[in-house]
Each structure stands twice: as C-alpha cells, then as structure tokens.
C-alpha cells in the first residue's frame, strides 16, 4: 500500500485534472525491486499445519515421521498418488481425526486402494486432477 501510494503521487487527482510530478527513479526502482523479489519458500511443517497440532506423544511421533517422509522421500519422487489428499496427508489427517488405531487402519485401507484400477468409484477433483478421497470412517 505504501509503495503504491508512493507511485500514486504521479496520478493523484487534483479536482478534475491529473498531474504528473515524478522526477526521480526511486519509486520505479522500489516497484521493480518488488517485482524481482524471489517467492518465499515455505517450510514443510508450515505447508502441513496439521502436523503441528498434536494431542499426545504418539501423534507427535507420527507427525514427525510424516514430516521426515515429506522432506526426504516425497520430495525426491514423481507424483504417484491417485488421490487427493495424498496417502501421506490422508494418514496424518486420519490419525488426527480418528485417533491412532482407527487412523492407522484407515491409512492401510487407503494404501491398498491407491492403484488407479477403479477410478469410477470416486469423484474427480478437477482442480488437483486427482480422485477425491477424504478421511471418513
């Protein structure tokens, strides 16, 4: 807002007329500097905020395993999972929502279904180009 206000000086309305007042390159340089700012890289833990919300030690361990998987294994492979959310994200969500026992059972069930052999059984998430399969018990 401040940056644009700086530039807006040039086109500020004065009654019915617009006037141009800029004689330096400073506002343009500031604007271009903003355009050339590299996008911030989010940390894995920030991308999956659910991994930060743990109610017991077992959930903390499983969240840690999830983050290790996402950081060191999932980051190196091709996108293979047929579903959205992906199997690892599904596993984390299932454990958080249903508890450890039901969550692990649900995740095992999901892993056996992640093969792309029966797409007609699922709705399609057109935005993600994946099959929809949210956590449910």
């Amino acid at each position, binding site marked *: *807002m401040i940056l*644009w*206000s700086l*530039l*807006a000086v*040039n*086109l*500020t*309305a004065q009654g*019915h*007329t*617009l006037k*141009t007042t*800029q*004689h*330096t*390159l*400073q506002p*343009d*340089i500031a*604007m*271009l*500097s*903003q*355009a*050339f*700012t*590299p996008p911030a890289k989010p940390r894995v833990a920030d991308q999956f905020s659910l991994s930060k919300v743990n109610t017991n030690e077992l959930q903390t361990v499983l969240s840690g395993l999830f983050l290790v998987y996402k950081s*060191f*294994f999932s*980051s*190196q*492979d*091709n996108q*293979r999972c047929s579903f959205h959310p992906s199997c690892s994200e599904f596993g984390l969500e299932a454990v958080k929502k249903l508890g450890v026992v039901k969550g692990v059972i649900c995740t095992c069930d999901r892993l056996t279904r992640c093969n792309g052999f029966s797409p007609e059984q699922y709705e399609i998430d057109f935005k993600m180009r994946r099959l929809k399969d949210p956590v449910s018990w």
Partner: protein
Amino acid sequence: MKRRLLFFLCWISASGWLGGQNLEQTLAFARAQYEAGNTLTALKTYQRVLFFGGNVHRDESQSQLATLHASLGEFDRAAFYYDLIYQSAGTDSLRYEALFHKTASLMLQQQPKKALLELLALPKNLPEPWQSRKRLYLGAAHFSIREFELARQDLLPLFGAEDSAQKAEFEKLFRHAERVARKSPKTARLLSMFFPGAGQFYAGDVKNGLNSLLLNGLLGYWFVATGINYSFIDAGATVTPWLFRYYGGGIRKAGEILEAKQEERLKKTFQKVLQTIEVER
C-alpha cells in the same frame, strides 16, 4: 392488507422528499473512505462514481481505482484501469505516466513480454525523466526474458559517462547473470541420469543432491544385496518399482530445481543491479 396499504401510502408520500446519494456525495464518500484507509469500500464507491458519472470525475475515479487495485495486489485490474487512463489521457506526459504504471503492474504480475510490448509502443526518444524511466523498465523487461545484452544496453546510459565503482559492479552483475542463465535444465537431467544427485549439485542444491544420492545409493545397495542373496529376478520384482520411482523422480526434479534456482538467482542479481542504479543516481 391494511398494514400493506398503510406502508404503501407512507412510502408514496415520503418518496417526494427522500432521495439517494447524488454523484458529488458519493464521490465525497469515496474520498473519505480512501483517506480513512478503507480500501474495499473506497473501491466499490469509486466504481459506482465511474459507472453512474460517465465522463464526470472519470480521471479521478480511474486513477484511484487503479491505485486501490494495485494496493490490494490485483495487478491485472490495476493494469486495466491504467490502460483506460492511457486511452483517455489528454496530455502526452499523463499518457506516459499511465503506461509506466501499467508496465509496473505487468512486471509485478510476472508478465515481462506484455510489459515489453507496452514499452515498445512508446516513441524512441522521450524527454527526461520519461526516457530514463523507459530505459529502466525496458532493461527490467529484457532482463526478465533473459535478453541480457539488450538489458545492459538499456540500463547503461542510466550511469554517468565516467567510469565509477557502481558501473564496474553493474558490468560484473551482468556477467554473473549470463553465467547463471547458461546452465541448462537438460544438462541437469542428463547428469542425474548418469549419476543420481549430480544434476542437483550442478544446479547448486547440495541438500537435494545429497538426498537423491543417498536414497538411490541405498536402493541400489538393496537391489544388489537382494540379487546376490536371493536372485536378480526377486531384486527386480521388489526393488525396481522403488528405484524407478526415486531415480526417475530425481531426474525430473534436477531440471525443475535448476529452473527454480536460476529464476531465484537472476531475480536477486537484478535486485542488486537496481541497487547500483539507485546508488549511482
């Protein structure tokens, strides 16, 4: 029914002296909202002024709408309003000003080719300070599309005629940019094909290079160990899907990482170029 009739009669009798906001009141409200920092309300109100006012207060509404959209990060809408200002501007200076603002909006949208098209529509020689601004934006647009020599030629006149430390730094930064852009994603992918992780090292991403090397090394060890201890048919059946997943993924990622790293480094380099211009001026 009686209540409805009563309401209708009251409404009819009141409609003679009740009235909505007129254009001037709406404009005053829009200005007040802008001053108070209520961006969204100001935006809607200025849109109303522009819609109902026609050419009355058009210039103010358009420029304020462009500024408000830009401050909200909606640079495509801002560019649209700057374009309207450009079309209806009465003087050359105002037209140039609107065009530079539109160019800035396009650059912020990461659309340097469109920005370049706008800038090339300007006359070859402009009076100062427009010429310097044109050079700056042209340089930025050319740099974005990796036309470094053209960008250098655009920006060099912004420095004084005599040699200075800033000018030397400027030349050094351009040589660095050319070196960064010379690396090819195809080479990175090929390197990773022959030696997992090598493409990532080539791109300058040591962490991902080590990660890929370790992962593929472990899977390779698992393949060989299974082959020796059991049979290579067993090794093929058990390890190959994993190996294919991470080996193939590593090759693809090497190219992606290089492209992302190049983009990041070039952006940082141009920020430094802008700093040298700022110091020089």
